[in-house]
């Protein structure tokens, strides 16, 4: 089943690698946004199956973006997975409280990224 993922990350290179990984390995469709604000607009328009959200972004960061997504009723139900380079569990707990479905650590393995997303969201592979 072709999934549609919205990826929000300020690093262009990472956006490309994630997109290429999900597209070539799992055959999913990926929409990319370079900032939280752009991501929220795209989420409302494209209604993706899930959002992959970077935590550390200049301006509106990951948790702030997640709050805005949750506060809008069109996007409130879209599951969000954080992509984070911060691996401290204190940090993870803070994010857990923000209402994310799960976490994926950077650096990720592009060959298994889609499988991991599916596992977190309970999707059939």
């Amino acid at each position, binding site marked *: 089943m072709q999934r549609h993922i919205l990826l929000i990350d300020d690093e262009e290179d*990472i956006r490309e690698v994630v997109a290429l990984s999900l597209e*070539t390995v799992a055959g999913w469709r990926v929409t990319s946004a370079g900032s939280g604000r752009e991501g929220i607009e795209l989420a409302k328009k494209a209604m993706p199956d899930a959002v992959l959200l970077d935590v550390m972004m200049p301006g509106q960061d990951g948790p702030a973006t997640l709050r805005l997504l949750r506060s809008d009723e069109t996007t409130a139900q879209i599951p969000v997975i954080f992509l984070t380079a911060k*691996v401290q569990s204190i940090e993870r*707990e803070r994010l857990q409280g923000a209402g994310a479905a799960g976490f994926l650590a950077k650096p*990720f393995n*592009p*060959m298994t990224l889609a499988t991991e997303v599916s596992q977190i969201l309970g999707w059939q592979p």
Partner: protein
Amino acid sequence: MPIKRTVEKTVLTGFVIVLALFGIVGVVSQRTIVGLVEDNQWVTHTHMVLELLQRVSFDVTQAEASVRGFVITGNDNFETQYDAAKDLIEPLLSDLRLQTSDNPAEQKSIAALESLIRERFAVMDQGIQTRKNGGLNAVLALRNNRGLVLSAQISTLIAQMRSQENRLLAERNLRARQSERRAFVVVLLAVFLAMIAVMGSVFLVFRDLTRRRQIERMKSEFVSVVSHELRTPLTSIHGSLTLLASGLLGPTTEKGTRMLEIAVTNTDRLIRLLNDILDVEKLDSGSMEIRRRLCNGGELIRNAADVMRPMAQKHGITLDVGESETAIWADPDRLAQCLTNLLSNAIKFSDAGGRVRVRAVPTAAELRFEVSDEGRGIPWSKQSSIFERFHQVDASDSRKKGGTGLGLAISRSIVQQHGGRIWVESELGKGSTFFFTVPFRKVEPTNGTQSNTNQSATTDSRRERNAETHPADR
């Protein structure tokens, strides 16, 4: 570390100053006490001399009164009284001599007094004899006033000596008071300075400790920022290389594929190193939390073996997992990290076709985990140093085997935080067995609540940790 030296120096300096001041206090107190005792002796001595002088004066007066009585009445009782007074005077005078033996000026006065008194007694003896022989009239006929002159001289001399002694007494009292006051000031000053020294060193030590903590916090922040900043470019590099090496993006030449493999392997190693450095930093700063909950020893080794199976297959190693269902109170994620570390080492140092065994053996007080291989073994001299950071048996191992040199150090810290021990038994050429123990401990209530509230987080963290530790195996 320069700051460490400063703290020690400060403590030592403060200690030396306080010790010196207490030494001064001791010496001054001792000298003052000795001085006071001496002064006291002097005062007693002066009183004694004064009393002796009074008794001499009284004795002479008594003798004079007896002589007068005898001359007038001729009564023998008066002569007896006189003889008693005369007998008493010599011991009194010799006592006086003895008491003033240290004072030449007094000795001179006493010598003068003695001769005056002897002469006075001689005159009185003469009076008594004259009375006995010639009666009252014979005495009156003598018309001798030598006795009166002597008596006046004796009184004057004794009065002089008494006033001299009184002056000495006043001087001694003054000196004693002065030395008391001086000692009081010195002791007070020394105690005050000691207090300043103690407060000063406490202040300096606290300041240094605060600074040291600050530096440690900065170091810890630095490590986590650097590790985070390195992670972002590494994510892109690792992702791109892995996709390229997978062949999904199109064919590459054989040499190109080999180069990509090398690049991927080394990026993996870099990521592992980064994660291990972060772990070591967390262990150093004490910020690595141990979240204990009830877990099954058998499940832990089965899970660890499952994680390591792909690596074992790649190296042609059979994993032999023991049966166990013993429950322990521990952090399953951290123990899994230890087990995968040990298993990864065991696989790396085994030859293809070898067997790696993992067991969890309950003993009386603890659960003992064992990971054994049939590899080359570890020389006796290296068996304890391998648990130190960056200490590998062979310097080329980190390159050949892709290790970080931190795995065993991290495992040791984790085991120690659980109150257990970690060690290795090994025979060269036959293999090694790594052991670590986790004591069966009573449930601590604070940890219990903590682990309950974080149960969901731990599941995620385990998933993430696997991603961190073995990116290549996924």
